[in-house]
């Protein structure tokens, strides 16, 4: 469903991403790993339309999307989270989920002012969808709290829930386990697998937690200093000499 061919991104003299190719098929969990500063987040920024890539091709469901505005890409069904959580901190948890559903609600101003039946019905549906996902990620108790006051782990889960209410086809997670304790990481592991199994979402994952990555990935892409280093199943990647060298050299 997602095909990235020879993606490059240059910042002035720095070639942050150099000829990276990634492939995600339906109902697949694909990970991108690599040392700090390898260019993983930059790849995400190109895919989600925040940066205009300097080279390469990005196909989503057969359509070229490189250079398209971010909000259009998101509306096509490719939604991401951020390495540093980005919530609407002054809004409540449930409102965070309502904002994300603007495509499902009736945004017609007149309909909203008159509270037409269609407007009410859709507003109710989006509240129900929000309730469903809050329950799913275990945040129902804090639904009416301000998002900025949540514990870190809760914020992470809220960000994922906020993506899911948009009903994406491909979910892109940038280091979702960063800052989580082992128990929370375990929960996250189950959640991601369930997103794939129960909701037919493909997942593109950036993660440093190797046990998480090795456990759930169907395939792994390794990049180092912007260049692709290896790719394959977790088993193949684990045994790849270049990867071992890069990671040992890093550590």
């Amino acid at each position, binding site marked *: 469903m997602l095909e990235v061919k020879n993606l490059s991104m240059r910042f002035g003299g720095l070639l942050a991403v150099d000829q990276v190719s990634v492939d995600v098929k339906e109902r697949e969990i694909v990970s991108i790993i690599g040392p700090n500063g390898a260019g993983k987040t930059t790849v995400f920024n190109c895919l989600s339309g925040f940066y205009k890539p300097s080279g390469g091709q990005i196909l989503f469901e057969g359509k070229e999307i490189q250079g398209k505005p971010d*909000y259009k890409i998101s509306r096509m069904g490719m939604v991401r989270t951020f390495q540093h959580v980005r919530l*609407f901190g002054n*809004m409540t948890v449930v409102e965070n989920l309502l*904002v994300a559903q*603007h495509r499902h609600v009736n945004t017609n101003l007149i309909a909203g*002012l008159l509270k037409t039946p269609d407007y009410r019905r859709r507003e109710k549906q989006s509240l129900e969808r929000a309730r469903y996902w809050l329950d799913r990620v275990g945040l129902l108790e804090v*639904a009416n709290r301000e998002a900025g006051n949540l514990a870190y782990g809760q914020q992470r889960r809220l960000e994922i829930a906020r*993506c899911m209410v948009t009903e994406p086809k491909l979910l892109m997670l940038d280091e979702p386990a960063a800052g989580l304790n082992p128990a929370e990481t375990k929960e996250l592991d189950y959640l991601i697998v369930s997103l794939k199994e129960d909701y037919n979402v493909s997942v593109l994952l950036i993660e440093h937690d190797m046990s998480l990555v090795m456990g759930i990935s169907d395939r792994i892409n390794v990049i180092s200093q912007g260049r692709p280093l290896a790719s394959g199943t977790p088993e193949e990647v684990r045994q790849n000499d270049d990867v071992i060298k890069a990671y040992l050299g890093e550590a």
Partner: protein
Amino acid sequence: MAANNIKHALFCAVITLVISYPILGLNLVADGAVVYLEGATTFTVVSVFLAAVVVFLFQLFRDDIMARLGFISRLNPLSGRDPMPQQKRAKLESWVLTGIIVLALFWPFFVSRGSVDLATLVLIYIMLALGLNVVVGLAGLLDLGYVAFYAVGAYTFALLSQYAGFSFWMALPIGACLAALFGLVLGFPVLRLRGDYLAIVTLGFGEIIRILLNNWTNLTGGPNGIGGIPEPTLFGMEFGRRIKEEGNTSFHETLGIAYASEHKVIFLYLIALVLAVITGLIIRRFMRMPVGRAWEALREDEIAARSLGLSRTAVKLSAFTIGAFFAGFAGTVFASKQGFISPESFVFLESAIVLAIVVLGGMGSQIGVILAAIAVTILPELAREFSDYRMLVFGAAMVLMMVWRPQGLLPMRRIHIELGKQG
């Protein structure tokens, strides 16, 4: 540290001298056809010099002074209190608003004509401020040319009545929609600018509209303005002593009461009141609708909002257009109240006043905006002898406000949508 301060203070003092002396000290005197420059009187020179000394001393001890000023905020009895629970606060707010409106309904029958007239002006400013509040307070776009849309509304009514004989009620929606259209067309190219740049471009736009009105003499009458704008009618009843429009009846004759000039003023006031209440209600509703949430989301974290599929341009444009719509609304009422408009009424100062109301009131809060509108319009009237210093007082008030209560008189606390226990 100290040396640095002295340098800075000296610099500020010199700037004060350089700026104030030519402005205050030098006079252009016209003597027949010849214009010559006249030097300053001793008094001015001494005052300017003293001002520079004051600036110097203030800058030198600024940290101390500012620290003292911090005490003022502790004098505010409300400052340390915990915020009320949301439900209670929302209820209180509705009660207070309803109380204000009921009071406002009966009040004009017991006061002088002049007060009612002034109150109408306050209501017009409230409408303007509520509209600008959407743009600045809710969507976070600094618009310094808001008066342009006010002018579009006013001139639309004036021109429609002059050339096509439209009545107030027909012109009201047209004026508002045309202003909104202006907002839409102008917003489109400029809204991709950020912060200060947006402020400058909108400022320029406001001036362009005014200059256009001033110079398009064939259509707008230029600086002479347009007069004879009709007053609103009540179901075809006019409020003047004699009927101006064919087919209308006169209010006092229909009701069989004696003619009184107050009727007209009170009627206008009531119209302005009703329209202001409608404006407030609509905007309150917007705040709880998807569009209101989108404004807030985009203001809080633009990147996150875009990653969820919100189009920055569309969301900002909606705020800009809605703001312009209500400015057009207010403009139509203003034209009708004055009966005469000219570009003089739409100078930058008006934008500044409305913006000041929004900032003083606490961006996004409606009761705050209402109180600030009353304060900003009425205080200058009460202190007429200080009218020359109006801008000075204004500036001082804004500075004090920023030190004392940057969040405004009554900061906005939006009513959150709650998820009930069971769906």
